[in-house]
């Protein structure tokens, strides 16, 4: 029961009007970019247009949203000094952390799904697109959990973790798909692209291939992707709850 109360409280906090408005604007931006790009890719099959837009837009927004909400799970409470009310209640710290992380995951998935639907609309919702969208929704669900778990650990270990998470999301995750060799194994997005819809290896447009992270190889099979992401999620959540249960979290300037 307490877990549900914590979940709903966090959800309500994450869905404050100003926050929702900001993400509505992001999704509107995705919609505009999607329509423009879809127009430029007129010759391609609708499924390929969708898959490319999805990898350029939806799977870029996902880690961004995860960085924002995962770091808010504990960091926001510490920053606004309200963590004291949560830590001095008869609630186990693992319950506290996991309930709030679940709320963050739901919100991140909702943003990702909204982006995917927008992109599907931009691609025309024609035959095949619905199947790719279904595949992507599954990838977005597991991706939301994977990114939130990963960024949650970063936020528990570092002060002002959002900067690190955003750098990771925009720097590493964006560029690793274009890198040579096996480095792609070190990015969550590589595993998500193995589960979700896949664009054709080359579009004939190097810029488009660069943006959609298609310049490097990605030989990850869906089975391996599920295994690696599952292990990543479990390890991050177990480590995160253990860390949170054994370390001090007091308002920042008081701790310095």
């Amino acid at each position: 029961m307490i877990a549900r109360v914590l979940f709903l409280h966090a959800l309500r906090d994450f869905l404050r009007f100003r926050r929702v408005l900001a993400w509505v604007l992001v999704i509107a931006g995705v919609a505009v970019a999607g329509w423009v790009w879809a127009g430029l890719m007129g010759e391609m099959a609708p499924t390929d247009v969708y898959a490319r837009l999805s990898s350029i837009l939806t799977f870029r927004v996902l880690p961004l949203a995860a960085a924002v909400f995962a770091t808010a799970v504990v960091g926001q409470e510490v920053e606004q000094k309200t963590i004291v009310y949560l830590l001095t209640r008869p609630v186990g710290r693992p319950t506290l952390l996991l309930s709030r992380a679940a709320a963050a995951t739901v919100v991140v998935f909702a943003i990702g799904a909204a982006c995917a639907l927008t992109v599907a609309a931009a691609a025309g919702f024609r035959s095949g697109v619905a199947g790719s969208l279904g595949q992507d929704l599954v990838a977005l669900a597991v991706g939301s959990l994977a990114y939130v778990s990963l960024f949650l650990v970063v936020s528990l270990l570092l002060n002002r973790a959002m900067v690190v998470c955003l750098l990771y999301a925009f720097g590493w995750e964006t560029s690793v798909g274009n890198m040579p060799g096996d480095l792609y194994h070190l990015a969550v997005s590589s595993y998500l692209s193995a589960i979700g819809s896949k664009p054709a290896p080359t579009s004939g447009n190097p810029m488009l291939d660069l943006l959609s992270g298609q310049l490097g190889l990605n030989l990850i099979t869906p089975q391996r992707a599920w295994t690696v992401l599952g292990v990543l999620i479990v390890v991050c959540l177990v480590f995160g709850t253990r860390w949170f249960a054994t370390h001090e979290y007091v308002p920042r300037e008081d701790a310095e």
Partner: protein
Amino acid sequence: MIKLQSVSHWYGQVIGVNDVTCTIGPGVTALLGMNGAGKTTMMRLITGQIRANTGSVRVLGHDPFANPEVYRLLGYCPDVDAFYETMTGREFVTLMARLAGFSAPEAKRRADEAIDRVGMADRADRRLAGYSKGMRQRIKLAQAMIHDPRIILLDEPLNGLDPGGRREFILLLRHLADEGKLILVSSHILFEVEQMTRSILLLHRGRLRATGDLRVIRELIDRHPHRIRIETPHPRALAARLVEWPFVLSVSLEAGGEALEIQTREPDRFYGSLPELVEQGLVILGLSSPDNNLESVFRYLVEA
């Protein structure tokens, strides 16, 4: 019920509390100390938000750090003025009750009762962001009592309360103490503490300087000469009169000013005799005592 044994905690190179040993039992106990003395650190150690670097903290026999069993029996009113600002006072207190494990109807009932008890019933449906400091203090107090804990820790609870609110609060504390609860209240205002309890813990620069009855400490202070500064347009004439009083130990004139400072071991007698001077036509513009503050209490204690 609360036991600290050789407890030290430091933040980096800054010491929060240093080798503190004490036992706190039922009733109201005041944790007295100036800003930065280590009161909040001690509160955080007892509420298990932080761990002692050395020594041990026990609350009802348990280590309080991240221990839900302890939090079932402990209510905490923190010093930080932080809330979920978009919530109303009633929503906040109800949420705290839900997090204490009560069902929705029971949480609502308890929240209404606690809000009523702190005198916020008519304002509880306004957003916390619009509350005055005093209203926020009352809401913090309500959330600390919501689960009827055996131990209540209040960190600077009178900050921001108006005189009426203070009086009500002190009455509430006495009532809670009569119910057999252990109440630990921190403050840096000696006068405030004297109204709440005689049982004190005196912290200074992280160290526990004195424990026990405030009256004993007062007597200890009274053994030292008490300084009183008098503002007057005729300092020399007044000084001449004051040196005749046997309980005045010394009189010194302030250079170039219209004031003098006396020392006495019997401040009550001194204050009682002052009207005689006024009747004799001597003008007194102002009186102040550099010794009527916590700093001087600590100075006396350290010297003693």
